[in-house]
């Protein structure tokens, strides 16, 4: 078995005195799509923020290609190849659609993604390129957020609830585009409230409950009962 591209070893994460993650272990193989599910407040966002460097952890608790990045700076981690589509999109309101995409490409990493390949993936953004990012619909804003992350040609992309607040038909469109996005050997971690969506696009799934891993398995093999137990605790 090849070395995992990303490995978490006993990851603890804190907000001040409050501990949000307790000893999370996780391995991610290169090119795999991994789903992370869990109830509100389980720690999913905290996990992604830890990986991307927005929360500082003990260095050895997060290994990226064998290198300890747990205490790394977010800009250094981004440049090393980990991109995030943050919860709630968080576009830059003072930047146009195209500028939001361009700033995503600032890391200067080589790869298939550039403005024209993003516009090919989401043609509507080409039409709206000079508009303020805030003037777009929620679904289009999500496309910009995804495009902005892709522009850095990351090796790992972290999606935090990309379907949050979007109409079902839009969610369908975005998930339909997902194979094109992660097709080229990219590794993806997908945090998703919609469990069936999460399971259908991923190879493996982790469930978090109150900051701990409560279930880990192949997405096609975990049963409904296992998941609801992992979600809400032993019943």
């Amino acid at each position, binding site marked *: 078995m090849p070395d995992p591209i990303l490995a978490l070893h006993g990851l603890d994460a804190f907000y001040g005195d409050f501990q949000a993650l307790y000893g999370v272990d996780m391995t991610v193989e290169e090119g795999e799509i991994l789903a992370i599910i869990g109830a509100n407040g389980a720690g999913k966002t905290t996990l992604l923020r830890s990986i991307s460097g927005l929360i500082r952890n003990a260095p050895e608790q997060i290994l990226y290609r064998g290198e300890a990045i747990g205490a790394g700076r*977010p*800009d250094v981690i981004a*440049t090393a190849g980990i991109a995030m589509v*943050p919860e709630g999109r968080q576009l830059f*309101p*003072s*930047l146009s659609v195209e500028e939001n995409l*361009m700033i995503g490409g600032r890391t200067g990493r080589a790869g298939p993604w550039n403005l024209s390949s993003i516009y090919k993936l989401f043609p509507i953004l080409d039409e709206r390129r000079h508009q*303020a990012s805030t003037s777009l619909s929620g679904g289009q804003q999500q496309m910009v957020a995804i495009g902005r992350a892709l522009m850095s040609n990351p090796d790992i992309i972290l999606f935090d609830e990309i379907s949050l607040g979007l109409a079902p038909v839009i969610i369908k469109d975005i998930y339909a585009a997902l194979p094109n996005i992660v097709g080229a050997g990219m590794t993806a971690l997908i945090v998703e409230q919609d469990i069936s969506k999460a399971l259908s696009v991923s190879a493996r799934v982790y469930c978090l409950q109150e900051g701990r891993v409560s279930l880990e398995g192949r997405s096609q093999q975990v049963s409904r009962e296992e998941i609801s137990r992992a979600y809400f605790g032993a019943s």
Partner: protein
Amino acid sequence: MEWVNAVVQGTLLGGLYALFAAGLSLIFGVMRLVNIAHGDLIVLSAYLGLTTTVALGVHPLLALVLVLPVMALFGYVLQRVLLNQTLGQDILPPLLVTFGLSVIIQNALLETYTADPQKMDAGALETASVSVGPLALGVLPLLTFGIAIVVIAGLQFIFYRTALGRAFRATSDNQEVAQLMGLNKAHIFGLAMALALAVTAIAGVLLGIRTSFDPSIGGARLIFGFEAVIIGGLGNLWGTLIGGILLGVSQTVGAAISPGFQLLAGHITFLVILALRPNGLFPRISG
């Protein structure tokens, strides 16, 4: 005619105030830092200009070739070493630290240059004037006004047309997500302060040619800068120029009414605008 003259002179003076204000506005816009030491940094630039002109025997405007990069470098280092450490959720630490910096700069200037008023010798430039109809316009105020327009247009270009400006705006919008784009916040803030102090260098040297200065006058320059920024609307550079002009015109018209009324008239204009339009005349249209 006296009134027309007051308005025209005030407008030109507004250019200098806009230069005082532009650096303040830039710093506040990018990192929400209110720099209490800004006025003293303007005075520091004037003294650096003075030392350069005396030591090298060059014209004060030529001294800028040296003063401008020195102040920019000082700004970068100051930001990375000191000010970045004070930025966070709490707005009080940067206020206290820049206040302390203001005291330190004043005392250092006092030690080095004494409290005696100084002035830079710009030769014929100081007294040259051109007549436009019945008005005599000083070449120095005209030049200052022209420089203010060029500086603001330049800042505007950097902000809206370059990758650095994109990084400034993104960091201003959302520091966390900006870092996720690979932007080093500490470095971006350092560059913003460098740019602000480069503008400050220009403002300081022009001030030092126009009037005599001593180590204690920074506070008033800070107030003028603040007032111009607030009148024009936070985060709007052209608004800052308009704010500077309104302040300058208020002062010269006030002085034409009664010499003692000059500064008060400026402050009254500021207060009236603050009362009527708390966000200034041209607040930045935010998303």
